[in-house]
């Protein structure tokens, strides 16, 4: 019995180094990307992650065009493209009447179109699939160090800006009235989001990386009332989804990125039903109420 469990749940990671590396990378990503997702939802920017993941694409494409399937080149290219899009959107919102979300929506679509054109000029469909949906086989030691580095950096920066960011999300006019600049905070925060999306694109792919950021974040909000609990809960859910997703993708031979996201999605559906702020507790509590 115990042997069976070992065979199913642990042996694949024991046997294959690439799976081990993918697991470590996913868990590292879970510790930084999922809390960022919670903060995004709190700022009513849930769809920003999605937009930014598309914005990263032209950079990845340029890296791919210039250096072929070099992970370093594509990572750096993607990061730069994301930063440029965030900065342009920030400048537009500052100097025109457009709000940040509207300008980001415009800029990322432009970036995405450019990216697709660039990729179609060279390369095959298969390359595009790899970039969009990732491949666990691709995680080498260098990639692992990148993900771990990004996760560490994100957590440190997030810890440093935690109080300011909270105040800026909760009561921006109060922060502005005290003379602090909210724009720089927002830009730094979005830079972290880009960094995590780029770090995730090896294991999960550019588009799927958002899933690990947002799905656990949304579910965590259904379980917990306070922010620290939500941040921790989202990380745990993301790590669980990463582990189970990798395991399933190995056993039933499916692409790792989408499988991990489907696992996060199953956790989300479960949360929708059973979490304290979900549907079932509401249904059960409707019958009874307190006296005061």
């Amino acid at each position, binding site marked *: 019995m115990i042997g069976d469990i070992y065979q199913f749940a642990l042996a694949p990671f024991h046997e294959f180094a690439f799976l081990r590396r993918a697991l470590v990378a996913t868990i590292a990503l879970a510790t930084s990307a999922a809390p960022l997702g919670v903060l995004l939802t709190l700022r009513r920017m849930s769809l920003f992650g999605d937009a930014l993941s598309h914005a990263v694409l032209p950079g990845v494409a340029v890296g791919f065009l210039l250096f072929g399937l070099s992970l370093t080149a594509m990572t750096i290219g993607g990061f730069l493209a994301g930063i440029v899009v965030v900065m342009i959107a920030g400048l537009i919102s500052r100097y025109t009447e457009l709000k940040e979300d509207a300008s980001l929506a415009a800029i990322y679509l432009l970036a995405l179109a450019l990216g697709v054109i660039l990729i179609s000029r060279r390369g095959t469909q298969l390359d595009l699939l790899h970039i969009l949906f990732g491949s666990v086989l691709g995680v080498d030691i260098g990639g692992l160090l990148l993900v771990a580095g990004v996760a560490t950096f994100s957590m440190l920066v997030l810890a440093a800006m935690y109080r300011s960011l909270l105040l800026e999300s909760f009561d921006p006019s*109060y922060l502005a009235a005290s003379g602090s600049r909210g724009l720089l905070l927002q830009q730094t925060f979005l830079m972290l989001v880009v960094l995590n999306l780029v770090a995730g694109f090896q294991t999960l792919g550019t588009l799927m990386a958002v899933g690990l950021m947002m799905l656990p974040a949304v579910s965590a909000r259904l379980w917990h009332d306070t922010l620290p609990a939500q941040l921790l809960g989202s990380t745990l859910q993301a790590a669980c989804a990463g582990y189970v997703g990798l395991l399933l993708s190995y056993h039933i031979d499916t692409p790792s990125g989408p499988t991990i996201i489907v696992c996060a999605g199953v956790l989300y559906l479960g949360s929708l039903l059973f979490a304290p702020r979900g549907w079932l507790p509401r249904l059960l509590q409707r019958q009874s109420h307190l006296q005061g």
Partner: protein
Amino acid sequence: MASLAARIDNIAGYSCAVVERAMGIGRRVTVVRLDDLTVAFRRHPALHHISGQFRQGSLTAVTGPNGAGKSTLFKTILSLLPRNSGSVSVAADRKRIAYLPQQSEIERSFPILVRDCILLGYWQQTGPFGTISSALIKRAESALNAVGLQGFSRRLIGSLSAGQFQRVLFARILLQDADLILLDEPFNAIDSKTTIELLRIVIALHQEGRTVIAVLHDHAQVRSHFPQTLLLARNVIAWGETAMVMTDDHLRQAKAMAEAWDENAPLCETMITTA
């Protein structure tokens, strides 16, 4: 209520500031001076050539119809909005200004405890990294008592009613220990009991020598509690002693001014010369 607020001050040893403020009142120092101030949105002025001053230690109501530029005035004093012409000079340390925006600007569903929300009142002291000592936490507890929210510190702000949440924001202002306090429609959508209690706090803050400016719509409230009034309708209709300002004639003027909106208004010549 006055003694309570004073006690909160004394706990953290702010009596020094109170004395300084009292000296300022004696000299009738100007805290905010507006000089020919114009602020426009899409070239239509929300504030049009406003001049005047708020004295230190004064308690002023800013009133006028919707769109009269009341909130714009506050935001300009805080330099949150660009000016088209004229100037605003504020003779108060930025760290000693408290601003209560309209409630709609605050994210009420944010998962934050009442206690933590109030402790944000120390932001100007602590900044993003400073620690909050146990003395400061104690002072926060007494501020919570002063606004009538004993035992609420572990509640989420999302679970509070509009009136309770406004009390929380007032507790935060008590902690800010500000010299200049700007309240934008503090009693909007608040029941009469809460309004009376919060009004008492406003008066207590005034009696401690702080300069308080509040945007209000209730004329009876303005007449009975606020010694000074600024009646605004893009222009200054009247500014001074409340009894002199809140006359039927002035109020009629303010109403007429706000209703006159001209999409094709000609360029204001004075604006060109000053710009």
